[in-house]
């Protein structure tokens, strides 16, 4: 295993009921880099990242075997709530808290997980919105309902909300699949910047997106990790014939 991995899986198998969705995945994600997971629908890429912050187990009748190691510790030996504070997540569809304002959405993790002072919260909200490249668009209506934002803005709000919890790793599950090309471009721009401070892992069904944003790319097929390596290498000189078939569009 490469040193410098922030988080890695070891022989990870995750089940829905009796059926494994991913089988024996061993994979390391480098710190301060963007790693992409690509593969056809149903290949287990979402399941894989949902195991990295223990969200997989929130669904009934699911089970995980193997290890997920974060900074040398198996997260399945830790409190899942603590794990999720260190490993943030952005979902496929923007899911802001509809009952809350923009401000309250971003400050949710702070307010519910501790008792920060008003100044501290303010500072963190501004910082997170700036990091998510949303601040300029919302600074005049920070108390407006979150649902008054457009889809792309809502997704950046969700990114800001995840960043405000000060995670070390940020998981993104097809964050652009519900967005138009302009909003997608903004989020991709953002992802490239985020790796300076975070370890970013992104699931995408869009190969061009992986090629544009990721330093490393993993290709999965029917629950198995087929190939993993630097993005350029994987796309230009794939080692596995399955990978080549997929990236040249012969299936998937």
């Amino acid at each position, binding site marked *: 295993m490469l040193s410098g991995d922030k988080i890695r899986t070891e022989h990870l198998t995750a089940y829905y009921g009796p059926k494994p969705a991913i089988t024996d995945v061993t994979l390391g994600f480098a710190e301060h880099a963007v790693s992409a997971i690509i593969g056809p629908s149903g290949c287990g890429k979402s399941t894989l990242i949902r195991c990295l912050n223990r969200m997989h187990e929130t669904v009934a009748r699911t089970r995980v075997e193997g290890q997920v190691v974060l900074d040398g510790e198996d997260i399945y030996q830790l409190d899942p709530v603590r794990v999720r504070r260190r490993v943030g997540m952005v979902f496929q569809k923007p899911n802001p*808290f509809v009952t809350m304002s923009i401000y309250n959405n971003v400050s949710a*993790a702070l307010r519910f997980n501790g008792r920060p002072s008003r100044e501290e919260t303010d500072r963190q909200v501004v910082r997170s919105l700036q990091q998510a490249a949303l601040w300029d668009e919302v600074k005049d209506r920070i108390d407006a309902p979150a649902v008054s934002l457009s889809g792309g803005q809502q997704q950046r709000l969700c990114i800001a909300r*995840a960043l405000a919890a000060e995670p070390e790793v940020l998981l993104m599950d097809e964050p652009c699949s519900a967005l138009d090309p302009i909003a997608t471009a903004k989020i991709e721009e953002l992802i490239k910047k985020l790796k300076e401070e975070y370890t970013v892992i992104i699931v995408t069904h869009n190969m061009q997106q992986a090629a544009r944003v990721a330093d490393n790319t993993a290709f999965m097929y029917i629950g198995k990790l087929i190939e993993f390596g630097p993005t350029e290498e994987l796309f230009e000189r794939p080692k596995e014939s399955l990978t080549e078939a997929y990236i040249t569009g012969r299936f998937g």
Partner: protein
Amino acid sequence: MKPFDRHARRKLLSHTIAVLSGLTVIAVLYPLVSIIYEAFALGGGVLFQTRFFTAVPPNACSAISCQTVGIGPDIVGTLILIGIASGISVPVGVLAAIFASEYRAKGLGRAISFTADVLTGVPSIIMGAFIYGYFVIYYPTIAYSAYTGGLALSAIMTPIVVRTTEEGLRVVPNSVREAALALGITKWKATLRIVLVAALPAVATGVLLAVMRAAGEAAPLLFTALGSNLYPTGLGHPIGALPLLIYFFALSPYSNQVKVAWGATLFLLLLILIVNIVSRLMIHRMKVRMGGA
């Protein structure tokens, strides 16, 4: 048969069904309109007398000059009984619904929903009889009191609160729960402060529905609250309630008491109507503020 005939027959059938369904609408609306009309005609004059809302109910009296006020103790009694019943039903009902919907322990959650459904169908007089039976054996001194009356009403309210809250929670998209959990918010905080808040309009609807149902119930109060013509002096004594007053006075042979019963009927009708309208407006506003609507 010629196509023209078939067309005519189809048209006739369509008209007949339209007329029939129109008639059933009248059949459904007639009782409601008639109740409101009668209540206004017979209770209107009584209701707007001075002191109708504050005076104690009149004694039996057959002369023309007899008093036709008031319903003061019964208004206070109904408020106290509903207060006690809501104090029990809202927390118990909401927590049971949360357990059933959010913490679905195998089968137990479904058992709660099923029990609530069955309880909704239990005749309300049985609730009263059961609570009376229990208290008369174990705490006979307060068998007739605001406590037992409140308990009997809460037995009617709780299943309604459980079911409506549960439905409200089910409608909250799962993505909201995931978003909260993924931020490292604990399950109970996410449930109480995010999921339940999103379901609040539904919870409020359920509580008001339950309150309105309980406010109009006489049967469960017959052997619990019992009724009283005096202002309540404590929760351990028999206490009046509007439906009880209506029940007793409507059967009275004295015309002044019958008039008061009509006044109380109109008051109860208007109260339920106003609560209904106000709560709908409130809930609508809540939904708009949450960005739903």
